[in-house]
């Protein structure tokens, strides 16, 4: 996937479920394609399902539980994307 295909998080409410549940991610160029891909990948043609897609970059997350995390910045992104995550230069083996 080239850079123009951002990552989208997928949330699905199955017919009998109560709330949307995070099921994974898809790559897509826009919201329309993201919805189509999400339906194909995560619901495989089942009907009556509600799907939400959100660009991963749009999600803000709380800090991880471990406050003594040495190498994380105060985490506000959900993934360890290299551009989200700074490692001190003198840490070995990274």
């Amino acid at each position, binding site marked *: 996937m080239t850079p123009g295909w951002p990552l989208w998080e997928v949330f699905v409410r199955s017919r009998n479920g109560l709330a949307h549940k995070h099921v994974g991610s898809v790559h897509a160029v826009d919201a329309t*394609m993201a919805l189509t891909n999400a339906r194909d990948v995560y619901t495989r043609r089942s009907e009556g399902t509600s799907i939400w897609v959100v660009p991963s970059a749009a999600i803000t997350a709380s800090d991880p539980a471990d406050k003594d995390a040495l190498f994380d910045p105060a985490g506000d992104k959900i993934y360890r994307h290299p551009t989200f995550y700074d490692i001190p230069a003198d840490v070995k083996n990274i």
Partner: protein
Amino acid sequence: MTASTSPDDGQSLVDYLLRLGDTTLVLSHRLSEWVGAAPTLEEEIALANVALDLLGQAQPLLARAGEVEGLGRDADALAYLRDAWDYRNLLLVEQPNGDFAHTMLRQFLFDSYAVELWSRLATSTDATLAGIAGKAVKESAYHVGHSGEWVIRLGDGTTESARRTRDAVADLWEFTGELFATDAVDEAIAASGVAPLASELEPAWRDRVDAVFADAGLEVPTRQWMQSGGKQGRHTEHLGHVLAEMQFLPRAYPGSTW
């Protein structure tokens, strides 16, 4: 069990069901050739979905055809043991996949027709056909959204994708006339309320095609000459190769259960 719906002891109904069953089967088969070669992993899944939906339509259509025919042929016997001259599919769907633009355009042209057809077949006087239509109408609505979006993306994408899409239009347009051409079988079927006359579907099809082509920056061709013959068993050179591959095992090992 419906009573014979035409004066020819059900032969028109058999022909009609074979036309639709063979069309969905051959198109499904063509799409399945993309497995492992799609442009993205997400599209692998999307194409397989459409192929499976079409196969899910083909099987009961052919089964019903065999039932009405009354010679003991089931869906597999019809699919695997008829030669090309007995196949009744539209010529459009046996055309080779070509590149992704060809495949998506072929799909869109078919889906736009299928969506109109299935919505009318939901009230068919043949209960089996109406039942199949109930499910197929939702499937084809989804399919036409997917294929239409791709025609737009490719037509209105890069210079290269636009060129490829224009080439696809030039290659495939002459197969669209057959979708709406009618013969004695179609007239008998329409008269008995089993199916609409195909020509009635053309205006809605054309509206959808015009709208998507406009968004895709494509010109609707003005050329009038159209290919025909598929519904009567006169095919292009392509179908023979499709069937040779598809039918190999049952023909090489006759009488076997798989």
